[in-house]
């Protein structure tokens, strides 16, 4: 796969239509808009917490395009807003989660930005780093065990998670049993306040693949098309029963870890500003404009539409009630079991 230069040279589409390219771009715009909305609502005192995925837009929009809705299973981590939007979650559902309203998939009981949707094949999130990977590998094992060919599990994590024992055990187990599993690492160089050089002695996560006996590859996570191609190839391989792949997308975390974090205590504004030149959202916009896939008017209209959708979803979610105290055990135990009854 040739590296796509987003600004010069020929555009390698990897089979993506104009419509799909526009869909990816809209996902990226929506992701950024919702990210900002989460931070705004937090600073307004309306939501307790939000996570920022700015810098991950291209990677997540590209990976979502490689996900086969209705067949594949997604086991994401907590910084996967764009992936979840890309596989079908609506902005309204995102805002229900952030506002912790009763109508949220988790009844407003999960952490904000921790979605789940049985309809979308979206597994419930874990805040514990790497805890979702044994679950993801278990889901892949069950696909293999039941002979459900043509389906695969896409699991994601950040660079920090690769230092966890569960990451290693999951990778090894998937490799031994040749499971239909794709490990997508979104390497944004920061694990909260820990920089990559204090996380690993060599900076390329994909190089761990050979030690497990599975293919590994690295791609530019600021390029949604290259991301799509790399993840799609790995997912196809998994769906065809050829086993797991480790794919590493390089990106950057532009915001603080979450609304509870102040990144100026561990990195300078200048360092972040310098990396803004690679910001995938304006970069992909330029590509679409230069190739005539979108006109400036199209882009403006799309931005307006994304903002309108975000505003409407915000108002609709905010107007809904919190869960009732009496519903505390609703999504925990089967039936109406409540501990004080026993």
């Amino acid at each position, binding site marked *: 796969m040739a590296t796509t230069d987003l600004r010069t040279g020929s555009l390698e589409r990897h089979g993506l239509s104009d419509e799909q390219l526009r869909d990816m771009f809209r996902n990226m715009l929506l992701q950024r808009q919702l990210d900002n909305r989460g931070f705004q609502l937090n600073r307004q005192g309306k939501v307790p917490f939000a996570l920022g995925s700015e810098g991950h837009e291209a990677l997540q929009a590209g990976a979502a395009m490689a996900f086969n809705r209705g067949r594949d299973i997604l086991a994401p981590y907590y910084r996967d807003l764009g992936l979840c939007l890309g596989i079908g979650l609506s902005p309204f559902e995102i805002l229900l989660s952030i506002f912790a309203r009763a109508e949220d998939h988790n009844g407003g009981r999960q952490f904000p930005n921790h979605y789940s949707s049985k309809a979308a094949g979206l597994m419930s999130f874990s805040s514990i780093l790497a805890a979702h990977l044994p679950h993801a590998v278990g889901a892949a094992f069950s696909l293999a065990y039941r002979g459900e060919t043509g389906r695969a599990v896409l699991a994601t994590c950040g660079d920090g998670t690769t230092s966890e*024992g569960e990451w290693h055990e999951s990778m090894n187990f998937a*490799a031994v049993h040749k499971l239909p599993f794709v490990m997508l690492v979104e390497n944004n160089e920061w694990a909260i306040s820990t920089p990559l050089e204090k996380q690993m*002695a060599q900076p390329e996560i994909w190089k761990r693949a050979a030690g497990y006996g599975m293919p590994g590859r690295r791609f530019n996570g600021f390029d949604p098309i290259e991301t799509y191609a790399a993840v799609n190839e790995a997912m196809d391989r998994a769906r065809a029963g050829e086993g797991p792949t480790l794919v590493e997308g390089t990106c950057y975390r532009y915001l603080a870890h979450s609304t509870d974090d102040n990144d100026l205590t561990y990195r300078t504004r200048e360092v972040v500003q310098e990396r803004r030149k690679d910001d995938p959202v304006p970069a992909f916009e330029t590509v679409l404009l230069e190739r005539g896939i979108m006109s400036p008017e199209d882009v403006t209209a799309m931005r307006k539409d994304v903002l309108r959708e975000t505003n409407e979803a915000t108002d609709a979610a905010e107007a809904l009630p919190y869960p009732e105290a009496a519903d505390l055990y609703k999504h925990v135990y089967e039936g109406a079991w409540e501990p004080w009854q026993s």
Partner: protein
Amino acid sequence: MAIKPEAQSKVPLERHGLTNEQLVAIFRTMLMQRTLENRGFQLNRQGKIPFASASEGHEAVQAGAAMAFERGKDILVPYYRDLGLALGIGLTPYEVLLSLFARAADHSAGRQFPHHYASRRLGLHTISSIIAAQLPHAVGAAFALQYRGEAGRAVLTTFGDGATSEGEWHESVNFAAVHKLPVVFLCENNEWAISTPLSKQMGQPDVFRRAEGYGVPGAAVDGMDPIACYAAVGAAMQRARSGGGPTLVEAKCYRFLSHTTDDDDRTYRSPDEVQARRKDDPVPCFERLLVEHAVLSVEQVEALKRSVLEETNDATDRAEAMAYPDAADLYEKVYAEGWEPWTVQRAQ
């Protein structure tokens, strides 16, 4: 150095700087390991001890690695199949038998699992039965050496192929790599994790290939060749002592016996498979090499074997004659200052 019997006379003796005396010391450790190993199984079958684990097939890697350990400076954090390493760094057969007999005079006062030695004098860390649990401890000890600026010292830690699938293994190797710690990870790959064969343990069969992903050097060595093992572990230890950071060394060997006296390996592998691997048995192979190159005469080998057996017999008799720990000593090596839980309860 390949020590295949049929090609032996054509193979030069690559000493890697080892003197005749050191080669003989390595061979004696290997003989002692095997004799003590058999003694553990015998005593178990006689009903005299509850349990013994088996390291037959690991003699060469352990005797070679022990020769690379600097007594009085380095720290050893082994696993439970490291009889030869413990002997090689100075543990006596009597101490080993005190552990097997679980006598009060044992280093752990007879309270630890058999074959789980410990010796502060020798720099021998207490052994964990939990697979890979020793590795964070080993890396912590290496971190302490670095933190205190104790240059010229290193930690040698060992484990089997099964331990490499544990999360703690990964976290330990990664942490050591990030901080460039003075630690050597020696994998004794014997192809069996109790009843799990290597093919069900890993997606590819070479543990040392994981090193690159951590940014540390990795090397594979013939674990049936004690001199090659000495050279590989020695180079890694030297690198660690001089601040060069950790190394992953994989010694390929084989487990000839069952996992322990509690295991029957015929339920998961055939005696034919084991028999076929006996041609690589490091003890007779190294004996032939030493005789071939006149490092030892046939008579000297016989004398060595007799002396090892006598020492084992003597140690067995002495250890068996010692007393079990008293029930009243239960907390002796657990808490400082004679603290006993029932004392506290009474005070309350």
